[in-house]
């Protein structure tokens, strides 16, 4: 009985970690600009698919990981420069629609460039399962959890301790005031797209050895990451992380103890309940506090 629970938790935390990374990407752009970037899931896909491509060219895995993260960051920056920046002054809703369009464009471009095949990345280390009691986990599960924790810590440090991080948060609070005190607002927004793309790419690289990747792999992960951010509270970065892990664990426990047939439905129902009783999300500040 306990072994089963342990297995469900391992699964939930691994899957939840990827939701958390995607959710964190959502939260960062939302924090900087009030925009929900629906191309976040596509960053995950671009990270994994470009890695597959670099591997196919014959580069060693460590180089591949670096290159694919850089590629995704370039895509993220290009998304801001080519699409978002031109719509400066447009309403938040318009900008969100632009990101939806960008998501569809990226998916289509990936289909053209890489085709509709499914690909796998090699595991970072061995594929021999590790036994913990009667439960098992792959070394890749540990990679997912540890790297997620590390990235989350770094992001938190960036926003709490560095000048640039604080400047980005400043843009979120009041763009005009930020501008007046000498913060380069467009640069801060550009940076937040870059970081979000980086997070997406890391999530894609971590999960692709376990779950494979294809041109349309971003849709579901984007949706789950968005749910994680909503669950945790859109304005709170750490809330999005907690929301992601929680969502993964709830899904796993739900599938394990109730029914696997309603796994996704249950996750979304929980989100609806949270929104109904606590609209700002579990860890979100009250909306009145947001300026």
């Amino acid at each position: 009985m306990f072994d089963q629970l342990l297995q469900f938790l391992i699964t939930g935390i691994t899957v939840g970690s990827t939701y958390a990374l995607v959710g964190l990407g959502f939260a960062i752009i939302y924090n900087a600009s009030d925009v929900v970037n629906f191309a976040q899931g596509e960053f995950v896909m671009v990270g994994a698919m470009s890695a597959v491509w670099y591997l196919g060219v014959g580069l060693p895995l460590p180089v591949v990981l670096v290159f694919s993260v850089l590629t995704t960051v370039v895509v993220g920056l290009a998304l801001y420069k080519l699409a978002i920046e031109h719509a400066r002054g447009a309403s938040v809703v318009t900008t969100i629609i632009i990101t939806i369009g960008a998501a569809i464009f990226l998916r289509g471009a990936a289909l053209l460039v890489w085709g509709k095949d499914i690909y796998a990345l090699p595991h970072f280390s061995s594929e021999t399962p590790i036994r913990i009691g009667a439960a098992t986990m792959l070394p890749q599960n540990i990679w997912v959890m540890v790297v997620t924790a590390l990235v989350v810590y770094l992001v938190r440090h960036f926003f709490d301790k560095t000048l640039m991080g604080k400047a980005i948060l400043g843009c979120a609070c009041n763009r005009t005031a930020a501008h007046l005190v000498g913060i380069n607002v467009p640069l801060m927004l550009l940076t937040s797209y870059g970081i979000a793309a980086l997070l997406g790419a890391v999530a894609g690289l971590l999960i692709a050895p376990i779950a494979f990747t294809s041109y349309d792999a971003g849709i579901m992960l984007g949706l789950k990451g968005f749910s994680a951010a909503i669950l945790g509270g859109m304005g709170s970065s750490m809330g999005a992380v907690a929301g992601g892990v929680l969502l993964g664990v709830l899904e796993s426990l739900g599938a394990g103890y109730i029914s696997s047939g309603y796994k996704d439905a249950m996750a979304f129902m929980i989100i609806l309940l949270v929104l109904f009783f606590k609209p700002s999300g579990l860890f979100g500040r009250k909306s009145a506090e947001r300026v």
Partner: protein
Amino acid sequence: MSSRRNFLKYSSAVLLGASMATSAMAADPIKIGSFLAVTGPASFLGDPELKTLQMYVDEINAKGGVIGRQLELIHYDSGANPQKAVGFVKRLIQRDGVDLIVGGSASGETMAVVPEVEQAGVPFISLAGALAIVEPVKKWVFKTPHTDRMALGKVYGDMKKRGISKVALISGDGGFDKSCRGQAQGLAAPYGMQIVGDESYGAKDTDMTTQLTKLRATDAQAIMNCGFGTGPAIVTKNVRQLGIDLPLYQSHGVASKKYIELAGDAANGVRLPAAALLVADKLPDNDPQKPVLVSYQRKYEAAHGAVSTFGGHAYDGLMIAVQAIERAGSTDKEKVRAEIEKTRGFIGTGGVFTMNANDHLGLTLDAFKMLEIKNGDWTLAE
């Protein structure tokens, strides 16, 4: 201006004359209509099907055609959309005036056009899987691919031989997966199988260890997975990861090299029912299907790359049609239909077809081979 008009008049007269001359030299072509999912989500079905049809129509024409007439392939891309398919079939019948139709990559589009072909009375050989296409029997409708009922029959038969009577089911949430699961449940009792677990996963899920942990807690003697795409490969990896040493069965939905590539070492020992085309070169030399399979495989691979069983279904459909026209000696629709129904012992890529008035598919369980994956390649399990 007037000189240009004269030129047009002259050239069109020449063209008209030329076309009349060719039609005088040969009789009217036999028009074979087709609608296939060449693009869209089901393009992995329609793409090899169209390539196969074009390749063999060209080959038959080069050899002088059928009953002294050339074949003409008229095809439309339905994208597996039933509404589009109905439109294209109407066009094929009314405007293009086709003699028969070979096509319909997906079951949904096939079922949608059945009323059209039945009403118009045009022989129709479908390339889709669902059992409902030919059961109950419809006068003008035939099909060449195996059904999932046959696949599950083959799986349960193999399990019985290994002394397995308790099976745990896991399936995806797509149309194919659900239909396969339905057959697995429906056939359990007739084969003396007991289903002791029944789990599902989403087509885009990234981890199925939770569901498999539940199945591990049952007293199942084997696991059967219904699905295609990434799901079955993840299930295969997760089974090994959890250290479950029960025999793992997959459906014919994973019968492609891609599955072995994705699942890697974890795929070794997995069993699945599949058309003999996948193991053409491993069949014993006395197998009657071997020459047909090897010839199709060589021809297709020389032109287009790795074969899939789906292209094979199109080969079977076209050849059954051509042989029926030859036996009928004309393209009279009723005669051709009757001759298709009289197909006896036709050796195709899907198996040996013997149809009759009550069976418009004509394949038996022998058409499926039970395969086992060993060292990253298909082997015959029997």
